[in-house]
């Protein structure tokens, strides 16, 4: 049944991180146009990620023993919020910071932690995630890519698709079959770490409708991996991935995908002599939705720091978040075109075009809306 989340505020010591991050971002991002910044999540900039790492802001929550910042989830919330709000090109280190690093820390061996985590924190190891395959989208348990045991480790064959950032990442964490057949569903799946520089790996970019190429197809042809490629338990991949996805659904990432557009539109309205009542109401609607989502996201962060696992709430916040992220470009387009002769700044129109074109993916990545809603309904009492 539905519970409720208590209101929480960011602890003072974590909020104190914000000004330094903001100053760094102002200096680093300079005057990049909004439509470029709007790529944020899928903006790949290795130099930026390394500069951020030099400040100690990659792996902020990882233990100091492995080169991390040892800070709380609230500190990461502040950092992530500022990065996304500014449209920083975070993709290079983002997956390692939010998914792969925590996965290795949770399930990895001591040797794996010592090898990967310091590299992640220095911005030397960028990760991508190999989940989807041509025949395994929402039905993730039907993956066919297979790692077969050899005398020295694993032999990898198969194909992944829709792998963001694969072209530029040093490593991939892939969900593969290590035993059984696709019909065995979630049994016999494992997670492995793949060094993307190994022979037998072919990465082919897929151009998206906005002209970018952050998606890739990745082919594995007799790729030889060491024994230590396995992360966590052999055959335990499904449970590991499920908990990773639950983690993926929390945090501020699912609120701010359209924030550059929203702020651009707000600036435009502020520059106008007259703002229509419809636009004033719309600004209020967006702000109200985002204020509530932010409060919910903070409450979930609080639960996670207390060792709880609010999986239903996280799924629900993600779905609500992507809904408003998608409503922002649609409704702003209507508000702008309500005055057909208005002269709208070029950068705002380009930002609108980009966000409009990419917004369908907001409710695909990390689990589609339809899958997510099924999880929510069952989690809340449907038998």
């Amino acid at each position, binding site marked *: 049944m539905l519970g409720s989340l208590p209101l929480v505020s960011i602890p003072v010591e974590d909020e104190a991180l914000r000004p330094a991050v903001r100053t760094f971002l102002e200096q680093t991002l300079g005057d990049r146009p909004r439509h470029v910044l709007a790529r944020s999540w899928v903006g790949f900039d290795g130099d930026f990620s390394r500069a951020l790492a030099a400040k100690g802001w990659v792996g902020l929550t990882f233990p100091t023993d492995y080169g991390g910042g040892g800070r709380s989830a609230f500190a990461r919330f502040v950092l992530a919020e500022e990065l996304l709000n500014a449209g920083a090109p975070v993709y290079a280190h983002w997956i390692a910071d939010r998914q792969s690093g925590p996965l290795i820390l949770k399930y990895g061996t001591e040797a794996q932690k010592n090898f990967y985590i310091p590299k992640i924190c220095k911005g030397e190891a960028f990760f991508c995630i190999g989940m989807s395959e041509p025949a395994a989208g929402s039905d993730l348990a039907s993956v066919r890519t297979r790692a077969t045991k050899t005398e020295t480790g694993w032999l990898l064959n198969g194909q992944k698709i829709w792998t963001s950032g694969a072209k530029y990442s040093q490593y991939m964490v892939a969900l593969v079959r290590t035993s059984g057949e696709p019909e065995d569903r979630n049994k016999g799946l494992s997670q492995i770490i793949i060094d993307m520089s190994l022979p037998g790996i072919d990465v082919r970019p897929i151009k998206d409708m906005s002209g970018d190429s952050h998606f890739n197809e990745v082919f594995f042809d007799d790729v030889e991996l060491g024994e230590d490629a396995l992360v966590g338990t052999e055959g335990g991949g499904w449970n590991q991935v499920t908990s990773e996805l639950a983690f993926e659904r929390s945090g501020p990432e699912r609120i701010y995908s359209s924030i550059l557009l929203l702020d651009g539109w707000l600036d435009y309205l502020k520059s106008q002599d007259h703002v229509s009542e419809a636009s004033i109401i719309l*600004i209020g609607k967006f702000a109200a939705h985002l204020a509530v989502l932010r409060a919910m996201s903070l409450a979930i962060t609080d639960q996670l720091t207390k060792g709880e696992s609010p999986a239903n709430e996280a799924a629900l916040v993600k779905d609500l978040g992507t809904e408003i992220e998608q409503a922002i470009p649609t409704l702003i387009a209507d508000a702008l075109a309500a005055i057909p002769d208005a002269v709208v700044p070029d950068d705002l129109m380009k930002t609108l075009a980009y966000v409009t074109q990419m917004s369908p993916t907001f409710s695909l990545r990390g689990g589609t809306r339809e899958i997510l809603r099924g999880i929510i309904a069952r989690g809340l009492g449907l038998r």
Partner: protein
Amino acid sequence: MTDDLLGQSFERLLQEHCTPAHVRDIENGGPADALWTAVEQSGFLDALIPEEKGGAGLALRDVFPLAVLCGRYAVPVPVAETILARAIYVAASQEVPVGPVTNWDQVPFETVDIRRSTGAAIAAALLVGAMERAFEITVAFANDRTQFGRPIGKFQAVQQQISVMAEQTFAAKMAAEMGFASDDWLPDPLLAAVAKARSSEAAVLVSANAHAVHGAIGATEEYDLQLFTRRIHAGRTAFGAESYWNRIIGEAVLASGPEGVLDNIRYKLSA
């Protein structure tokens, strides 16, 4: 923890004196005396009155669970409103009227705006309680009702509708909680605006999906859903619907200097 104890004891009272049968009876012109007397004798009505004036000295945030319960039990007398109004009468050094406060316009608020935003915060909490019940009734129905040889909750289309109800109710509850996040008895006006704007918007979807899942039985007098969906629609427009409050928020955001939306939220729209 006080919250929980307070809520539990209030809920026991409602379970005894405010069943759906009581609600129907009172709505049909029957006497509300028994319910009102029980509430009055419980002392809950003086929750927000300072201790030195003979009340419990609680803050608005402490009585949020009580207001939501009034919505959950479709309480047909103005309990939440009277709790608030009594604190206002005392703060204005006026005599607290006997019985339920039925005329909000006579409550001595300092300004019209404060009167409206306080009413909006209460309406939001009542709305949330009604939405929670509509959601629970709908989940139970979807598990029980069988069509095509299985419970209708097994169908993905129905699961989607129920998830939307859950999401909207959950967001509305967070918003209403923000509206009540005050250490005295008055809500912050902009947080009350968020509470009412967001819960009013949620109301439409929650009611529509509850009825869609139920089919015709949901629209009958004898089935309890109507006790809540009628209140959901009335609550949505009480003290201003979403457009009114979104405009208030929008004006505040537009009046800011160079700040973007995030900073507006951090400074003005956070509890």
